[in-house]
């Protein structure tokens, strides 16, 4: 019974870790560069969850001060993650620009085919 309760208390972390590992798996196992970048952004969003989840207080409300409420969720992770989201899309745009350039130079965005072409020269 206690094990079940412990699992439910940490269920959000279980899913977060699953997303993290899935993102890592896509980055390592897939040769296609667009897919690698999407895996990277899945990894990033799992980190958002990892930061936001401990900030939630059950029965709390969004951190906007109002006389009607007394319990607020923690605003600090929200600030950090706002920054992280924006930086994340900046890195995604830069990575995709690199993919476009690689496609120009090699005519492909598959890692294996790029290695083959590098081997020819």
């Amino acid at each position, binding site marked *: 019974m206690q094990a079940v309760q412990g699992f439910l208390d940490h269920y959000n972390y279980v*899913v977060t870790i699953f997303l993290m590992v899935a993102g890592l798996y896509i980055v390592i196992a897939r040769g296609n560069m667009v897919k690698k970048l999407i895996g990277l952004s899945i990894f990033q969003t799992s980190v958002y969850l990892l930061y936001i989840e*401990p900030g939630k207080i059950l029965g709390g409300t969004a951190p906007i001060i109002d006389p009607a409420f007394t319990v607020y969720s923690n605003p600090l992770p929200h*600030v950090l993650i706002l920054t992280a989201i924006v930086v994340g899309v*900046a890195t995604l745009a830069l990575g995709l*620009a690199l993919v476009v350039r690689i496609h120009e130079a090699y005519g492909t965005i598959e890692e294996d085919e790029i290695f083959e072409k590098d081997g020819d020269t």
Partner: protein
Amino acid sequence: MLLTLLAVVTLAIIGQRNLFGVVILSGVYSFLMASVLIVLDAVDVAMTEASVGAGISTIVLLATLHLTRTIEVRPWRRSWAPLVLALVTGLAIAWGSLALPPFGTPDAVIHRHVVPRYLADTVKDTHVPNVVTSVLADYRGYDTLGETTVIFTAGIGVMLLLRGARRRDGGGGDDGAGPRA
């Protein structure tokens, strides 16, 4: 429940080999993530995730697909090494997460450090009722300045990379336009 849906969409992204489908699924993923964030009381983050994650990211990804190609040719890589590595990493993180406090408890360490001061003083100090805004733009304003610097640098990088591309064949529809800071 929503978290479970997120996991299902992630599995679909791993399996899907048409990159167009992958991009659309990642938009779905971002919207689900925004819903989860609203449930977690992070309304500002949810708004940013919906506009940046599901909006700008999807547009930039589609522009890239337009300039490259949409099918991932390689089938499954035959190696077990990535799966094993990912599983080992996941177990290590899960083992570490056992020490985290249970979900939603108000007396966790994270709620007792600097945050009570932000919550108590923000209206007096900044006259802004939204604590996220006041911390972002006032208490931690230098961090936000650094963040905008990162976006600026990334924008310059994208422009330089794609200007080289355009010189060669006149393509290029990708833009690194900075979203809200």
